[in-house]
């Protein structure tokens, strides 16, 4: 009946799943890191979250068409983080069941086997504004029992610091297989939705710790026709989303 919907690509479900992170966020800054989160944030801004603020990746706050509407150099960006009017979606080289995230290094910190980016802003992000994560290749190497260096703070760690941790929140983790949250009694990771075409078994195999999985896991919602048009023709006509998720 609807031809365009029968060929929704996995990367497009990922865009929808990322965009949903900013639903009902109100008038705050969306800070997507990565290609698909960026497409998702712009989709949210153009549809159900019209009050969102977006940056050009440098120092300007811009409308979806690129028109500048504000100035946000790094010094102000860091102040805005502490002020909390922001929801960032970061990457993760490793993430554990409580949402502790690592982007610093692999192996022993004192002499790493693989030096990565460094902690960057993960500690300040996670203690001050909602922080979600985007993982384009879900594997047991990323979803690990224990991260080598805690950069972004997870729920078990922050529970030890109730006062300082009062603004901590990890709304969701999106991967190429599904959406995850921490809506469990002990705030450990739960499978919130599967992208169509993915089985629970596949997710379990790709995850290095025991996930909470309910009896009936929903599928990530379908994009509307208008959303698909916006993704394909307006926001990402160069198909950058396929560089992160190939289908």
């Amino acid at each position, binding site marked *: 009946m609807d031809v365009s919907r029968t060929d929704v690509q996995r990367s497009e479900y990922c865009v929808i799943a990322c965009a949903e992170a900013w639903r009902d966020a109100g008038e705050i800054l969306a800070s997507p890191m990565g290609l698909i989160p960026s497409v998702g944030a712009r989709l949210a801004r153009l549809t159900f979250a019209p009050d969102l603020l977006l940056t050009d990746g*440098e*120092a*300007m706050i811009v409308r979806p068409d690129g028109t500048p509407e504000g*100035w946000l*150099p*790094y*010094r102000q960006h*860091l102040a805005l*983080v*502490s002020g909390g009017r922001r929801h960032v979606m970061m990457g993760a080289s490793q993430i554990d069941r409580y949402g502790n995230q690592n982007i*610093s*290094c692999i192996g022993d*910190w*004192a*002499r*790493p*086997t*693989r*030096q*990565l*980016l*460094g*902690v*960057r*802003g*993960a*500690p*300040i992000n*996670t*203690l*001050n504004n909602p922080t979600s994560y985007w993982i384009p290749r879900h594997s047991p190497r990323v979803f690990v029992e224990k991260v080598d*260096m*805690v*950069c*972004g*703070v997870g729920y078990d*760690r*922050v529970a*030890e*610091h109730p*006062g*300082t*941790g009062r*603004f901590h929140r990890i709304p969701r983790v999106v991967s190429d297989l599904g959406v995850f949250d921490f809506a469990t009694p002990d705030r450990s990771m739960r499978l919130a939705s599967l992208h169509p075409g993915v089985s629970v078994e596949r997710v379990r195999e790709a995850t290095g710790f025991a996930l909470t999985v309910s009896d009936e896991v929903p599928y990530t919602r379908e994009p509307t026709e208008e959303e698909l048009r916006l993704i394909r023709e307006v926001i990402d006509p160069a198909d950058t989303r396929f560089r992160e998720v190939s289908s």
Partner: protein
Amino acid sequence: MTDKTMTADEVVSRLTSGMTLGIGGWGSRRKPLSLVRALLRSDIDDLTLVSYGGPDVGMLVAAGRVRKLVAAFVTLDSVPLEPHYRAARERGAFELMEVDEGMFMWGLRAAANRLPFLPVRAGIGSDVMRVNSGLRTVTSPYEDGETFVAMPALRLDAALVHVNRADRLGNGQYLGPDPYFDDLFCEAADAAYVSCERIVDTAELTKEAPPQSLLVKRLSVAGVVEAPGGAHFTSCAPDYGRDEDFQRLYATTPWAEFSERFLAGDEQAYGSAVRNWQEEQG
């Protein structure tokens, strides 16, 4: 009025081994690389570097000049992982104080304000506290009783920054979209050295740019160097963008080879070597 103009080599002659050196810019953006290249021509080593790290850090650690680094990241932006930094870190070539981007900023602010520390809601719960055993916390004396990291002042013996324009007295101006933290680096340092694309008369500074572009005040500056292309190969908007081709070469060439071809001579020789390479590329 003191004319503070000097050459990059004169700046380096005022630096000594063992110093704590702050370097402005951010990642691969507006890095004072002509001053770094001059530093590499000297035999100064045993440095403590404080930087929002880019190729400045990569080159100095590759050359074995660094005893300790204070950083939240080291990146070439378009090349996410700085390969020379990465190699040096994986062979344990230097000591690292790894802190969050916000903690770093508050450390500079504390130094600029002559405070021993400033409280920051960052670091608590993360392994930044594990890998920096010297970091302390502070509890709010008010009724909230919240605990913060007491980020120690990042006081600098010297700072190196690169801006678009400056006058001979040390008033520095940025014309790009982001000041980064160059003013803070200068204020946190006992002596700050500013290189610039062009030295102009003081009156020229505000002829075509607004007063808020005057980022660095002369009272915090000890020396001014005119260095056209001084940020190359990092970006220096709006004067020039990042030289992505050359950065890729830097990122994929063994350090010894890169250093021998491009850094063996002075700044003029560097320019010629870069142009020769560009001509070879067609």
